C-alpha cells in the first residue's frame, strides 16, 4: 500500500511539472551548477524530484522567484531573496516581530529564517510525517539550535539551556516520544510557530498574563481540576491575583509535581531566616523573620513561598519588596469572600485594629489544619480562640455580653460546651458551628447564621431530625401564616447557656418560655394540679411540651397533634398508665373565672365561695358579739370565785 502511494505521488509530481519549471530545471537540475557567494562556492542545484513532491509543487519556480522571466534567459546572476510574505503574510509578520526575526534583522548570524525551519525547495506540509515541522519532529527541529552545546545555547540571552533534555523528560515529551501522542504539546504549541516572543513581552504566548490561555488550548477543563484553587474564572480574568500554570508546573519540566525553581524558597530564606530582619510600618518594627521549622510543620509546607507571596517581582530588589499582604483568596476564595462580608471583615477594612484578620486566627506561617489537635482552629480550641476577644474583660466581650456569666463561661457550662470539653465529643457545636467560621455577623443582620430567620437552618446542620419535625409544626412559618412572632430554636434553648432538656432547670423554665407568648394558658396551667406541683419544684409533673409536644407541636384540632382525639389518651398515658377516654376529659387549663367556657366550674366555685362567706360571716358576727359579753362574764366569774374564797376563809 505504501509503495503504491509513493509511486502515485512521484508519477503525478513528474507529470505535473510545468513546462516553465522544466526550463529552470534544465540548468538547475545540474548538480554541478554552482556560483560564488562571498568567496564561497554555493550550489545552485535544485532537486526536481523533491520539488515536485513539495507543497509548492503547484507553484512554479517563478511563483516565488518572481524576478525571473523564463522567456528571457539566462536571468540575472543575483536574484532577489524570495519573499514568503507574498503568500504567507501573517506568519512572516509574526516572524518579523519575533525573537528570531528581530535577531535576523540585527544581522545575527545564528538567527533562523523561514528556510532554516521549513527548507527551501523541498518544503513539506507540517502534516507530512517527513516534514521537519511535523509535530514529532518539532523538538529536534528547535533543538538544532536550542540544545545543550550549540552556539545558541551558549548565548547569554537564552536562559533555558537544557530545554530539549528537560522537555523530553517532561510529561509532554514523554507523551510525544514514548507514547507517540501527536496531540501532546511541543515547542510551538506553547511558544507558537512564528510569533516567538520573550516571556517579558506582553504579547508573548508565554507571558504571565497569557500563559493560562496558552495552556488552556489543550487543558481546557483544567479549571475543574483546580476548582479549590481558583474556584471560578480568576485564572482567565484576573491572572495577576493567582499563581499561573508555570509557577507550579515548570515550563520545560512539566511534571505532575510542584516545582520550586523560579523563586526557590532557599532564596527567600537567605534573608528571612534572619531573626533580626524587620520592616518599619507606621513607625513600628515588624519582624520579617520566618520560622522555617514551624513552616515545615504547617499545612502549607507543600507550598513554595511565592505561591502565597505572589507579588514578587524580578525588577525589584529584593524581589519581595512591597509585595504587600498575602491574599489568601488566591486559594481560599470562598472563605475570604465570607470574611469580607463578616463583621470581622467589615471592622478590619473599616480600620478597626482589634478586628481579626486571617492570620489572627490561623497564624501566618504556622498555619495548621483544623484537624490538627494543636491547631487553634481545632474544635476543642475554638472557644478559647474566640474567647481571646469575646470574653469578660475584653472590650468586645463586654459589649455583647448577653447573660451574666459571659459568653465563654456560659458556653462551657452549656450542653455543647460540656460535650466538647468534658465528654470530649469533637462533633459537638463550637462557636463556629453556629456563627460560621468566616461569615460571622451580628444576629440582627439578616445574613447572619444566627439571625432569627436563619437560626433553625443553622441548628439543623446537626439537629436535622428536630428541624424536620419543627418545619411541619405550628411554630414553623411555613405552616403558620401569622403576623405574630413565631419562636425559633433559641427562644426556648438559650444560645450560650443551652441546657439538657431532661434536667430540672430546663423543665421548670420552659413554662416561662412558652408563657412569653401563651400567657393566658400558662396562667390557667398554674391553676391546675400540674402547674401547682410544678411551682413547688416538681420536675416530673407534666410541662407544656409533655402534652403538646415540643418541636412537632400542632394545634389540638390537627389529627396529628398529640392532643387530637386520636392521640390524647396515649399522650396522657405516658404519665397516667390507666388513662381512658373519660379521663382525658380533665380540663388541664381550666379556670373557674371563665363563665362562658367553664360554667360548671364557675358556679361550683361561686357556690363554694358563698358557703365560705356565709359561714364565716355568721360566725364572725357571733364571735364579735360573744367576745365583749364573755369578757364581762369573766369579770363576774372572777368576782364570784373571789367571794367564795373569802367566805371559805
Amino acid at each position, binding site marked *: 500500500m505504501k509503495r503504491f502511494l509513493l509511486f502515485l505521488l512521484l508519477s503525478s509530481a513528474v507529470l505535473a511539472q510545468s513546462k516553465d519549471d522544466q526550463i529552470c530545471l534544465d540548468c538547475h537540475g545540474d548538480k554541478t551548477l554552482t556560483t560564488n557567494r562571498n568567496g564561497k562556492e554555493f550550489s545552485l542545484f535544485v532537486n526536481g524530484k523533491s520539488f515536485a513532491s513539495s507543497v509548492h509543487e503547484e507553484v512554479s519556480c517563478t511563483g516565488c522567484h518572481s524576478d525571473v522571466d523564463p522567456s528571457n534567459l539566462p536571468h540575472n546572476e543575483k536574484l532577489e531573496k524570495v519573499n514568503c510574505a507574498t503568500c504567507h503574510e501573517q506568519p512572516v509578520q509574526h516572524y518579523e516581530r519575533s525573537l528570531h526575526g528581530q535577531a535576523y534583522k540585527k544581522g545575527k548570524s545564528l538567527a533562523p529564517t523561514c528556510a532554516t525551519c521549513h527548507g527551501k525547495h523541498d518544503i513539506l506540509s507540517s502534516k507530512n510525517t517527513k516534514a521537519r515541522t511535523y509535530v514529532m519532529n518539532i523538538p529536534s527541529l528547535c533543538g538544532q539550535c536550542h540544545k545543550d552545546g550549540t552556539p545558541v545555547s551558549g548565548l547569554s540571552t537564552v536562559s533555558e539551556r537544557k530545554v530539549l533534555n528537560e522537555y523530553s523528560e517532561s510529561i509532554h515529551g514523554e507523551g510525544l516520544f514514548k507514547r507517540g501522542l501527536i496531540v501532546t504539546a511541543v515547542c510551538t504549541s506553547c511558544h507558537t510557530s512564528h510569533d516567538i516572543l520573550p516571556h517579558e513581552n506582553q504579547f508573548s504566548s508565554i507571558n504571565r498574563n497569557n500563559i493560562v490561555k496558552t495552556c488552556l488550548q489543550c487543558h481546557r477543563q483544567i479549571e475543574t481540576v483546580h476548582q479549590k484553587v481558583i474556584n471560578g474564572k480568576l485564572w482567565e480574568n484576573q491572572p495577576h491575583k493567582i499563581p499561573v500554570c508555570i509557577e507550579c508546573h515548570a515550563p520545560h519540566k512539566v511534571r505532575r509535581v510542584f516545582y520550586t525553581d523560579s523563586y526557590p524558597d532557599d532564596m527567600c530564606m537567605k534573608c528571612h531566616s534572619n531573626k533580626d530582619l524587620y520592616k518599619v510600618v507606621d513607625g513600628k518594627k515588624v519582624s520579617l523573620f520566618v520560622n522555617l521549622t514551624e513552616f515545615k510543620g504547617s499545612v502549607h509546607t507543600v507550598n513554595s513561598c511565592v505561591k502565597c507571596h505572589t507579588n514578587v517581582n524580578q525588577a525589584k530588589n529584593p524581589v519581595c519588596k512591597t509585595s504587600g499582604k498575602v491574599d489568601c483568596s488566591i486559594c481560599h476564595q470562598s472563605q475570604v469572600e465570607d470574611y469580607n462580608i463578616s463583621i470581622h471583615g467589615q471592622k478590619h477594612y473599616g480600620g478597626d485594629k482589634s478586628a481579626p484578620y486571617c492570620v489572627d486566627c490561623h497564624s501566618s506561617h504556622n498555619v495548621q489544619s483544623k484537624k490538627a489537635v494543636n491547631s487553634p482552629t481545632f474544635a476543642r480550641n475554638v472557644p478559647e480562640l474566640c474567647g481571646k476577644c469575646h470574653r469578660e474583660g475584653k472590650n468586645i466581650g463586654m459589649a455583647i455580653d448577653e447573660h451574666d456569666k459571659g459568653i465563654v463561661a456560659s458556653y462551657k457550662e452549656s450542653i455543647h460546651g460540656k460535650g466538647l470539653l468534658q465528654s470530649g465529643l469533637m462533633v459537638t457545636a463550637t462557636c463556629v458551628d453556629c456563627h460560621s467560621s468566616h461569615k460571622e455577623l451580628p444576629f440582627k443582620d439578616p445574613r447572619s447564621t444566627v439571625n432569627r430567620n436563619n437560626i433553625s437552618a443553622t441548628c439543623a446542620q446537626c439537629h436535622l431530625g428536630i428541624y424536620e419535625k419543627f418545619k411541619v409544626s405550628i411554630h414553623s412559618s411555613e405552616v403558620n401564616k401569622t403576623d405574630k412572632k413565631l419562636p425559633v430554636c433559641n427562644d426556648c434553648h438559650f444560645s450560650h447557656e443551652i441546657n439538657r432538656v431532661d434536667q430540672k432547670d430546663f423543665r421548670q423554665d420552659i413554662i416561662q418560655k412558652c408563657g412569653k407568648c401563651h400567657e393566658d394558658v400558662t396562667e390557667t396551667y398554674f391553676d391546675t394540679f400540674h402547674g401547682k406541683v410544678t411551682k413547688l419544684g416538681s420536675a416530673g409533673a407534666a410541662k407544656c411540651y409533655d402534652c403538646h409536644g415540643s418541636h412537632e407541636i400542632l394545634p389540638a384540632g390537627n389529627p396529628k397533634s398529640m392532643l387530637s382525639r386520636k392521640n390524647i389518651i396515649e399522650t396522657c398515658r405516658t404519665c397516667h398508665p390507666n388513662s381512658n377516654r373519660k*379521663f382525658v376529659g380533665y380540663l388541664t387549663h381550666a379556670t373557674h373565672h371563665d363563665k362562658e367556657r367553664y360554667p360548671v366550674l364557675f358556679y361550683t366555685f361561686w357556690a363554694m365561695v358563698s358557703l365560705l362567706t356565709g359561714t364565716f360571716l355568721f360566725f364572725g358576727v357571733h364571735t364579735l358579739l360573744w367576745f365583749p359579753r364573755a369578757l364581762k362574764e369573766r369579770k363576774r366569774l372572777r368576782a364570784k370565785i373571789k367571794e367564795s374564797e373569802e367566805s371559805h376563809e
Partner: protein
Amino acid sequence: MSENLPKGKYYERFDAYSRFLHLLIITSFISLAITGMIIKFSGVGIFQFLSDMLGGYAVTGFIHRFAAVITFIYFALHIFYLIRKKKQKKISFTYFFKGENSLVPNKKDLEELWQTTKWFVGKAPRPQYGRWTYWEKFDYWAVFWGVAVIGFSGLLLWFPEFFTSIGLPGWLINVATIIHSDEALLAVGFIFTYHFFNTHFRPDKFPIDTVIFTGKVHIDELKEDRPREYEQIMQNEELLEKFGDAPSPLLVKVARIFGFTALAIGISLVILIIYSMIFLYQ
C-alpha cells in the same frame, strides 16, 4: 340535787376513746391543712419554702395522703363507736337522734341560739346549755360533712384514672379540685379561728381548755358552763360515777404543751393563708 354526792371534784366529760379520736383528728387535720395549703398556694414563696422545708412536693404529697388515710380511719372508728355505744346502752333510735344528749340539731338549739344572741346584747341571761351547745353541734357536723365531702373529692383527685374508668366525666376532676380546695379552706379557716375561739380563746377559757386531752372538767366549771348538763348528771347515778380526782399534773402539762403547739400551728397557718390570699388577689 341527788342524795348521792360526787366522788370527786372532776367530771369525766370525754372517754378515752373519744379523746384518742380527737388526737387523731388534730394530728391528721394539721398535716392535711399544711400540706394542702402548700399546693393551694403553690405560687406563694412562703409555701414553697415550707414545701422545701418538709422535703419537697413528693414528701408533702405523701404526708397528705397518709393523713387522709388517718382521717378515713378515725371517721370509721367514730361510726364504729356510735354503733357500739348504741348497742351497749341499748339506746333507741328515737333517743339516739332526738334525745337529750344527741348531736343532731333540734328545736332547742334554735331557741338557744336566739337566747344566746339576746345574751350577747345583754337582753337575757346566759342560756342553760346542755351537753352539746349548738356551736359544738355545728363543729361536729362540719367535720362529719367535711370529711365526707373533702374525703370523697380527695379520693377522686387521688385516683382520677379509676373514677373516670367507671364512668365519671373528666371535668368532674376539675370540679372536685374546686370543692376539695375550697371546702378545705373553709374547714381550716373555721377550725383555726372560730373553733379555737369558741373553745379555747373565749375569755372564760383563755388561753386553752384541756378537757379534750384530760377528759376532765371541774365541777364548778361544768356547773357554770353547762347548767342543764350539770343538773342532768346530778340526777343520774350512773353519771355521778364519772366524777373523780383531778387529772395528774403531768397529763395536764403534756396536754397544755400539745394543745399550745396545735394552736400555734393553726394560728400561724391562718395568718399565712390570709397573707397569701391578699398577696394572690392584689
